[in-house]
């Protein structure tokens, strides 16, 4: 019994050794990052200067962390911001890309929601703009559900007002902060809506500074009149997330 156990132990050592040797083939060098940390290289300065005045000077170090500086023939490229030492990408996500309103019935407003999320660790600030390719439309017949002008008839793509009446028809949206306060400030009241900008114009929906998990909920509202022709209405809302410069 004891002999058997000794044999096992002697076998175990070479097996473990072989396993370690062969398993090294699967090791790759990766940039090690996640949402919370990044391992990065040191700062290799390309040049430095010291502009001076009569009393003061400010030291400059041109270049930045080495992966962000490229020098070619007659040109120099700096990738990323000089003051943000991270290689984490700028992320943007939309929780649900298909906003299905189902079968619409007159004077029965339908609302649907989706969530826009921005993870911005690599830019000083960002904006998310939106626009629609056209109003809700039945491509085959050309029938339209017009963009809302809200209860007072005054809301526009740059100005939200109240839309509570079931006799106010059209299509519009509102933005609510789920985390942080990045939604535009137009929607001061929960009843406020506005229409999307028509492409190629675009309106800012969210904007903010550096941060992770910046979430906003967009509520889409559509209401039709009794005279609205039947059909499957559709359009495309384009959201573009842009870092500031």
């Amino acid at each position, binding site marked *: 019994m004891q002999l058997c156990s000794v044999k096992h132990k002697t076998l175990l050592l070479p097996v473990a050794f072989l396993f370690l040797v062969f398993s090294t083939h699967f090791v790759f060098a990766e940039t090690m990052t996640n949402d919370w940390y990044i391992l990065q290289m040191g700062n290799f300065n390309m040049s*430095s200067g010291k502009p001076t*005045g009569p009393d003061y000077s*400010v030291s400059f170090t041109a270049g930045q962390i080495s992966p962000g500086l490229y020098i*070619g023939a007659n040109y120099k490229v700096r990738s990323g911001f000089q003051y943000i030492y991270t290689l984490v990408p700028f992320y943007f996500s939309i929780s649900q*890309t298909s906003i299905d309103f189902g079968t619409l019935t007159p004077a029965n407003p339908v609302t649907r929601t989706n969530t826009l999320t921005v993870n911005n660790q690599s830019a000083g600030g960002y904006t998310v703009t939106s626009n629609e390719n056209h109003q809700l439309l039945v491509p085959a017949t050309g029938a339209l559900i017009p963009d809302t002008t809200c209860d007072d008839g005054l809301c526009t793509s740059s100005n939200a007002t109240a839309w509570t009446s079931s006799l106010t028809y059209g299509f519009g949206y509102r933005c609510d902060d789920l985390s942080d306060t990045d939604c535009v400030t137009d929607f001061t009241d929960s009843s406020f809506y506005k229409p999307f900008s028509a492409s190629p114009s675009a309106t*800012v929906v969210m904007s903010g500074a550096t941060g992770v998990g910046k979430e906003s909920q967009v509520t889409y509202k559509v209401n039709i009149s009794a005279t609205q022709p039947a059909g499957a209405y559709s359009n495309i809302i384009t959201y*573009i997330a842009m870092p500031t410069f």
Partner: protein
Amino acid sequence: MKLKKILNMKLALFITIFCLFSSILNLSKTNASTIKLGIYPPIIQIDATPPAKVSSDIFIQNQSEESTNLKIIIKPFKPKGTENGELSFLFKDDEFGADPLMMQRIKIFDEDKKIDSVIVAPMQEKKLKLEIDIPKGETPSDYYFSVIFVSNTNALSEQSLSQAAAGIATNVLLSVGPKEKPKGEIIEYSVPFFLQKGPAPFNVKLKNESDFFITPKGAIIIKNVFGQTIGRIDLLPVNILAHSTRTIPSTENSKDLLANWNESFLLGPYTATLIIALSEEGPLFKRNIYFIGFPIEIVIGLIIVVVIIVFITRKLRKKLKN
């Protein structure tokens, strides 16, 4: 017994087929997909002297569970006027730098193939190349544009719906030289004259009067009444585009565009000196402002405490005398 077994098997087979069909049918109805895109770098700053064939990598990530076909759009922009680095896209007739052919010189490559759309598989990162061919004798000028990746959508449906397309952009600041020495001025440098407590909120606005973008670097040095340096606020080295103004926050406070001196207790007169250099070669600007810190609430509190102590002491003395 055998019949029961056969019946059970039939029932199991029926349930399996039913589940399979219902899951297939359900799958075809599911259209609530999520899209998540990532891009690096968020900004590309290029300084070029003609002739030059500029090349820079752009990494685009698809973190969704489905493949995404992304259309690539190059859109020139200008500063929005909010003075915080936000941009607005140019209209068709707006001037885009000195060279009317510049848009044609900007190309995106996937390996060696010029592309205007790219398919990115789930959880894939694609390395693309931005190439700009600047010919000999090109007029010095700046060009600002976004490279936008927008997901394609298929809006055909039997129901009424809106389809959301996701787009993500990186901004490119291209400066074709040779450059002259930058010009600019401090438009605003202010802080409330009287402060009860910190932080002291400095407002710094700089105008770039050059024909190219600059990345100034500066700091605010704070001295007390005895001339001792007691604070330093480093300013964020932001990009200021040609002929535009930008508010410059501190490195510790990029949220509200103020350069805050995070000192909570302020007492006495202070001198705050702004020193800012527009580039490595200068010019260097210097400006002083003065403010007074006086913690009124604390002083009133102390006076009340002193009055109470004096009052009690007098009362006690009177009592002791009696």
